[in-house]
């Protein structure tokens, strides 16, 4: 289990290799990489709540380990000013089988979206605006309280 909040970029290949290194039981590694979409924006600013962020991410990660048989997990979230195309977040899970790795990675992202204190501000040619929370994200969070099925 590892959580990192950082301004700098991360190396997905190196992070995934390190995640499964040395554990012979791991047969499946799933990763999610979030990128800054570039349609009409000049930059994305990520603000967060230092202290609470790390606590919230560690709590979400612990919840994933309680729900699925996972050998390893990783959450890296960048903060600061990011250009279009930049990596924002990496979530990775390692398990013996793929179903647990897929479900846990989706769960981590769903909970991170609604429960980790990050806020996005889009910088556009016309100025800046804070990104609204999506109703779809609230629904994605809620599905884990009623069911563990799904891919």
């Amino acid at each position, binding site marked *: 289990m590892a959580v990192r909040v950082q301004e700098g970029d991360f190396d997905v290949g190196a992070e995934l290799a390190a995640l499964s290194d040395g554990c012979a039981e791991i047969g499946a590694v799933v990763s999610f990489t979030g990128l800054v979409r570039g349609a009409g924006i000049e930059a994305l600013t990520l603000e967060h709540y230092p202290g609470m962020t790390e606590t919230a991410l560690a709590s979400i990660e612990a919840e994933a380990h309680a729900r699925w048989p996972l050998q390893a997990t990783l959450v890296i979230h960048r903060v600061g000013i990011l250009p279009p195309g930049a990596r924002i977040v990496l979530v990775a899970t390692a398990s013996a089988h793929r179903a647990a790795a897929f479900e846990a990675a989706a769960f981590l992202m769903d909970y*991170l979206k*609604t429960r980790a204190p990050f*806020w996005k501000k889009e910088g556009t040619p016309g100025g800046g605006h804070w990104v609204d929370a999506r109703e779809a994200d609230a629904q994605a969070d809620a599905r884990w309280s009623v069911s563990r099925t799904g891919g």
Partner: protein
Amino acid sequence: MQVLYFAWLRERIGLGREEVETDAPTVAALVEELRAREDRYALAFSDLAAVRVAVDQTVTDFDAPLAGAREVAFFPPMTGG
């Protein structure tokens, strides 16, 4: 008590953190005190449906008691990931 503001609440109020002397028993009572201070606070807290609160870094609701609390944070719904 430390009071923190994030995202557009920070921008509207004009600061990210301040020490507040208060005997407010609940988050809601603290919000009323802040609203009464200046227009920028009243503006920031004009629509509480758009505001979330954490007491000592745990998300809670506006009815939450403040007895013993060291840090209260106000922010919009989270949009990370």
